[in-house]
């Protein structure tokens, strides 16, 4: 490790911008971005499953509010949602004196809330589409074998819907990674935040932003390949058998 | 007579798809008023041969002379190509094709389909083209459907419309690529009747078809193709009534 550091330091010796210190900024930024994106995706996913089922409910008092939530969060810019939640929290009277302020003081939590609500809305629509496209025959077969509504949902509808939703969900993951760049607007030091800092400090936009663009590109490709692999594994049954 | 150029001459056409040679040197001369029918089993190369005549397929070898004008080719790294695309465009305007799948332009009404190429390719005034188109639609029995879109018409109507579209070009030669194969049996008759009328008025036609009655009654010459070669050719009475080769006999034998 020690020797690696000295080697790296030597490499960077005649480079005024990419010093060990700035690389550390980028490294911390990467961690923040991954945390933010990963957490919001996981929570959003958990929220989206019941929402997607409720969205298709026959009871309008269940389906309508969910429809409205999805419509608003998918129809407005994420930046507006972020501002709304960030300023909304900051400007609540007296909040700065309460214990809540300890968590909310950092912009990470408002950003996480905004991102989660946003991705949950998109994911709900993706799942709903997948659930709706379940083959009629499969549902009829489940009914014919005496499955209850709940059992059918759990054993037949959802497993196949999740698989069908995979390609669209892969796009949503990439979309969230890219959308997370706006976290830097509310002073979060994510990847883009690190790049903005380096730019401001050295006035070197090309170095600062091209470097971070390359990191995002690598992350995008990693997600792309992960989902391609998952699709291959999980959607193999939909391909016609060969040979 | 001697100074009117021959409408279409095709010499020694060869065509390869990958490793298989599908046309092995085919020739044909269409004099004015000729109706030449190309028959043969599927895969015999008859449609490909027809498509080589207006260069929808590029022949690897061979010559084309349209109305006395020799089509020029050049060798490129990707094979032989026409040397002058303007010449090809000019030549195609003289050879109107009627397709198996009709290929009427789906976003235009029937009338718009008929005037499209005369106005935009030949540069005919729109008014004149419309007047001519209405006459042609009358002739194929579709006056009432001038403003219909292809999707609103039956297959037989679409094909008769497509024939009107071909006629609107005042072509030297009309090429028919299995014009009745995609039609329901009860609709075939109307289309064949239009084609018989065209033959009777002295149109030069080259027809790829499976309709043996049409070939026998209407054509001046029948060419039987087998695996990219001419197996037999001649007057319909000779070829269809007295086939010499075993293959043709079998091909003509009533099915079942």
């Amino acid at each position, binding site marked *: 490790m020690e020797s690696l550091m000295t080697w790296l330091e030597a490499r960077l010796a005649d480079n005024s911008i990419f010093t060990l210190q700035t690389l550390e900024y980028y490294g911390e930024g990467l961690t923040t971005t991954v945390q933010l994106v990963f957490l919001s995706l996981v929570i959003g996913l958990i929220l989206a499953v019941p929402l997607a089922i409720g969205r298709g409910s026959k009871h309008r008092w269940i389906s309508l509010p969910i429809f409205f939530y999805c419509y608003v969060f998918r129809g407005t810019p994420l930046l507006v949602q972020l501002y709304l939640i960030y300023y909304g929290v900051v*400007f609540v009277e007296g909040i700065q004196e309460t214990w809540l302020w300890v968590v909310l003081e950092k912009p990470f939590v408002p950003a996480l809330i905004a991102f989660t609500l946003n991705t949950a809305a998109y994911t709900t629509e993706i799942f709903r589409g997948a659930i709706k496209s379940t083959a009629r025959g499969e549902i009829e077969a489940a009914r014919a074998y005496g499955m209850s509504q709940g059992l059918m949902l759990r054993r037949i509808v959802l497993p196949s819907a999740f698989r069908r939703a995979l390609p669209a969900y892969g796009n949503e993951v990439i979309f969230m990674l890219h959308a997370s760049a706006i976290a830097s607007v509310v002073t979060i030091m994510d990847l*883009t935040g690190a790049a903005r800092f380096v730019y401001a400090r050295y006035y070197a936009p090309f170095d600062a932003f091209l470097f971070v663009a390359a990191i995002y590109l690598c992350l995008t490709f990693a997600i792309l390949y992960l989902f391609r692999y998952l699709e291959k594994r999980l959607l193999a049954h939909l391909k016609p058998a060969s040979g | 007579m001697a100074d009117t150029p021959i409408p279409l001459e095709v010499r020694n056409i060869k065509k390869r798809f990958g490793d298989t040679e599908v046309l092995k040197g085919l020739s044909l001369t269409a004099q004015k008023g000729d109706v030449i029918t190309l028959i043969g089993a599927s895969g015999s190369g008859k449609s490909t041969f027809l498509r080589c005549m207006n260069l929808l397929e590029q022949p690897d070898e061979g010559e084309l002379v349209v109305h006395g004008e020799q089509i020029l080719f050049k060798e490129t790294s990707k094979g032989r190509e026409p040397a002058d695309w303007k010449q090809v465009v000019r030549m195609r305007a003289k050879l109107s094709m009627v397709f198996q799948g009709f290929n009427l332009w789906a976003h235009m009404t029937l009338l718009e389909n008929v005037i499209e190429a005369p106005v935009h390719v030949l540069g005919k005034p729109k008014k004149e083209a419309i007047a001519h188109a209405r006459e042609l639609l009358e002739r194929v029995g579709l006056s009432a459907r001038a403003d219909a879109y292809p999707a609103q018409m039956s297959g037989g109507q679409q094909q008769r419309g497509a024939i009107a579209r071909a006629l609107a070009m005042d072509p030297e030669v009309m090429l028919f690529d299995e014009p009745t194969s995609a039609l329901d049996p009860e609709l075939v008759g109307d289309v064949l009747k239009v084609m018989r009328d065209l033959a009777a008025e002295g149109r030069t036609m080259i027809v790829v078809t499976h309709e043996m009655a049409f070939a026998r009654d209407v054509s001046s010459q029948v060419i039987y193709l087998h695996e990219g070669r001419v197996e037999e050719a001649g007057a319909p009475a000779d070829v269809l009534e007295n086939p010499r080769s075993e293959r043709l006999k079998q091909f003509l034998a009533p099915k079942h």
Partner: protein
Amino acid sequence: MIDLHGYGPRLAEGALITIELAVLSLVLAILLGLATASAKMSRNWVLHRVATLYTTIIRGVPDLVLMMLLFFGGQIGINMITDMLYDRFGVDIFINVNEFIAGVVTIGLIFGAYMGETFRGAFMAVDAGQIEAGRAYGMNHWLVFRRIRFPQMMRHAIPGLSNNWMVLLKTTALVSVIGLTDMVRVASEASKATREPFTFMIIVAVIYLLIASLSEWGFARLQKRYDVGYGEAD
């Protein structure tokens, strides 16, 4: 009524900028998209590679990063060129990168890549027989494109076009970050000054939803126009 603390007129100006920005970017994106789709379908491998590189990079990097790169980097790049012009030829010009133009160029460039994919798919969906009939009747490439390929392609492209437009509209919010006073920027300033974020942000959200709903209606009408001749039978 809602008290806007005097921010009403500025908010309206901001909304106008948002709309102008979105429409101009859309025009640029469509032109770039058509060019990209043509390049990707061409047999020329250099064009093909360039177009693929363009769409890959654009789709792999966040909009905001691209915007900052082009906006901040663009100014320095232009300064370098004008400096060189001065040193070499004594030409003394100063070009200030205008935020509005930078915004239009960036958003147009980003969505040109997405439009390229939309158009490519739509061009491929046009039935080959339709094109062949055009060629068989002596139409040259340009005529086939103008009279057959384009109008038939549009029918398949409109759903994607509409989708891209909705995303583009929301992406315009990012220009507030590089200093353009669109409605999001005005609302953000007003929120900070008045400490009433809900009032302003909700107004802005409603305007976005309004534009989106209005354009959804517009695209439905456009689709109807290009659907002419399809599906009336059966």
